[in-house]
Every structure is written in structure tokens, then in C-alpha cells.
């Protein structure tokens, strides 16, 4: 497979968006989307881990013994996540505290393992890096959309900045079920435009 960067970009952000189309990474999409700042940091962490994991796994793909393939992938992914965790704790402790356990949970995020198995195992390192990066970007975009709606309606703020609009806050938006509903609506909208193969209807 010799996909171009443009193909990989379009595929990972739109046609096969990990959250809206592939329904991956839902757990963190529900948990951190209460606030836009948390979503952004989570997204950046995931972009970092997914791109570097895909790159590393692709680099080693001819050397990894097949029978321990997934274990090795998990090892590589976990290592990058812990790097992010240590870095945040040392340099941005406030953000680390705000995200709490969810940084560590990036290890379990299906998107990273998904890209490793589906793409990095069978493609060259550089294009795998971009594949991972755009998958992370696709994830981040969805998270920001969800958290935009949740933070605006639930808190009346965006990125922590109050908009000074007078309306009764929708407390429901702060709770996890709100993310379920919003993501469900986004999936419904996107599947009205694309069939299950990602072709325009």
C-alpha cells in the first residue's frame, strides 16, 4: 500500500473518523469532554502517542515476533503515554491534576491499537506517523465539538472564559450521558452523508 499523505489525512479525519465513523475511543470522549481545555490537552496527548507509536511499530514491524505482536504494541504505546504523564506532572502540574487518571487511560484507548494493527503493521514508518497523527487530529476535532456544546450549555464558558450570557445552565450537559447523546447525534449526521464504506450518498 502506498497511500499519500492527503489520502491518509482525508481518511482519518473524515471518511473513517475514529470516533464518529469507527466508534473508537468513546470512553475518554465521554469523560473529558466536559471542558474544552481538558479535551484539547487530551487530544494533544493522543496525537503525540498515536503518531509516535505508529511510527515506532512500523519501524519495528519486520522484527516483532508475530505471536507477541499485541503485547509489544501495548508496551510501546504504554511507554509513550507514561512519557506524557511524567512530562505533564513535572512541567504542567495543574493540567495533570485536571486530567487526573485519564492521561494513563490513553493506554487503553482503542484508536492507538487500532491504527497500529490496521495500518502501522503493514506500512512504512513515515506514512504511519502521519496516519497516527491524523487519527489523533480526527479524534481531537470530535472531542472539541462535543466539549464546545457541553461547556457552553453546561457552564456558559468556553475554554474557561465566561461568556456572560444569561441563561439557565443545562446541568445535564455536565454529566456523562450528555456526551452519549451528542456523539450519537454526530454519528447520525455523518452517516446521512456517507454510507458505511465512506462514500458520499
Amino acid at each position, binding site marked *: 500500500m502506498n497511500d499519500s499523505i492527503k489520502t491518509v489525512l482525508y481518511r482519518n479525519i473524515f471518511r473513517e473518523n475514529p470516533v464518529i465513523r469507527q466508534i473508537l475511543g468513546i470512553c475518554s470522549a465521554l469523560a473529558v469532554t466536559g*471542558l474544552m481545555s481538558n479535551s484539547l490537552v487530551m487530544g494533544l496527548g493522543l496525537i503525540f502517542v498515536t503518531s509516535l507509536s505508529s511510527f515506532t511499530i512500523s519501524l519495528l514491524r519486520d522484527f516483532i515476533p508475530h*505471536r507477541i505482536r499485541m503485547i509489544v504494541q501495548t*508496551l510501546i504505546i504504554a511507554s509513550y503515554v507514561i512519557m506524557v504523564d511524567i512530562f505533564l506532572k513535572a512541567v504542567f502540574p495543574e493540567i495533570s491534576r485536571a486530567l487526573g487518571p485519564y492521561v494513563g487511560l490513553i493506554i487503553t484507548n482503542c484508536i492507538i491499537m487500532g491504527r497500529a494493527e490496521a495500518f502501522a503493521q503493514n506500512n512504512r514508518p513515515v506514512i504511519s506517523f502521519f496516519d497516527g497523527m491524523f487519527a489523533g487530529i480526527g479524534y481531537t476535532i470530535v472531542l472539541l465539538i462535543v466539549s464546545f456544546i457541553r461547556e457552553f450549555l453546561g457552564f456558559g464558558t468556553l475554554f474557561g472564559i465566561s461568556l456572560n450570557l444569561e441563561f439557565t445552565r443545562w446541568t445535564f450537559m455536565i454529566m456523562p450521558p450528555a456526551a452519549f447523546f451528542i456523539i450519537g447525534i454526530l454519528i447520525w449526521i455523518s452517516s446521512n452523508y456517507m454510507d458505511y464504506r465512506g462514500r458520499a450518498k
Partner: protein
Amino acid sequence: MKKGYSYTILFAFIISLFFSAILGGLNTFYKEEILENTLIYEKRAILDSLGIEYGDTSQSIEEMFDDNIRQLETMTDNRIYEMIDGDGAVVAYSVKFTGKGLWGTIAGYIGIDRELEHIIALQYTEQNETPGLGGRIADDEFRNQFNNLPVVQDRMIDYDDDIQAITGATSSSSAVLDIVNRFIKNDLKILGELKYE
């Protein structure tokens, strides 16, 4: 024997060693900073519980802490800090608390004046309540209810005109109330005995 058992074991060993070494190195490199961040966070909570103000930098937190606070060295497992004035006399106490919230531990400090008559303030070092709901126990609006709260040994406090729960966060609010009541029941006695030493 390229993909036989020996190769598998060797590969697994080498790659584990490689990544463990990188993480170990990174951890060591940042260890002091992480520890310092944790300590600064504790010190900030102690200062907040005593109503002491400080600047934005960690340096100013350290300075205010060193100038005003002294740890009480007794058998009370390092939970109590004393606020001292210019002459070294004790002006107030700050006591660490740990309690059970809805989702996890709630920990922090309660400041109380030397006469043990009024709580100065309350500040958290740890709470994992629902962000936006239970998490609002960390908001000034809720915390400030405990500022200058008069307390009497063994007289439990309850919700009233002065202390109100947060709508949608009853469990978390009550958890904090329980923590304050436990403080009144247990720690006031301990502090009272200290006064007469």
C-alpha cells in the same frame, strides 16, 4: 531460527529493557520537579487554610510558608502545622484531613485560630468528585461558607442558613460536612491538649 522461541524471548527482553531504560531515565530526570510540585501544592493548601496570601510564583509560596509556618513535631504523625507570628508565638493551627467523598478521597487542610473558637478556612489537596457538580466543593462559594465558622468541641454542625449544600452535589457537600464534623470531634480535643503543654 529467525522467528523461533529464542528470538521471541530475546526480542521481548531487549525491547522491554530499552523502553524501561528510557522511562527510568525520564523519571529520574524529572523526579525532583515532580516532588517539588507536590510539596508546593501542599504548602499552598496550608497557606490557604490559614488565610495567608501569596504571589503567583512557587518562590513566593515557599517564602510565605517558611516565614509563617512551622511543623508541629509530636506524635500526631505530622498532620498539624503551626502558624507563628514575628516573635515565634503560635497564632493558629492548620490540620490535615482525609475523608471519603463520593468517588474517592477528599484531602486537605483546615485552619483554626489558637483559641480553637473559629475555623479560619478550608482548602483541599485532593478531591476526585464529579467535575462541574461535586467538584464545585472546591469553588470559593462553597468553601467560603466555612470561613470564620464558630466551632464548639463536640457540637456537630449541620446545614443551616450559613452552610448550604450544592444543588446536584449533595453527597459531595455532605462528605465535606462530615469531614468538618470529624475535625470538631477529634482534632479540637488533640489541639486543646497541646495548648496546655
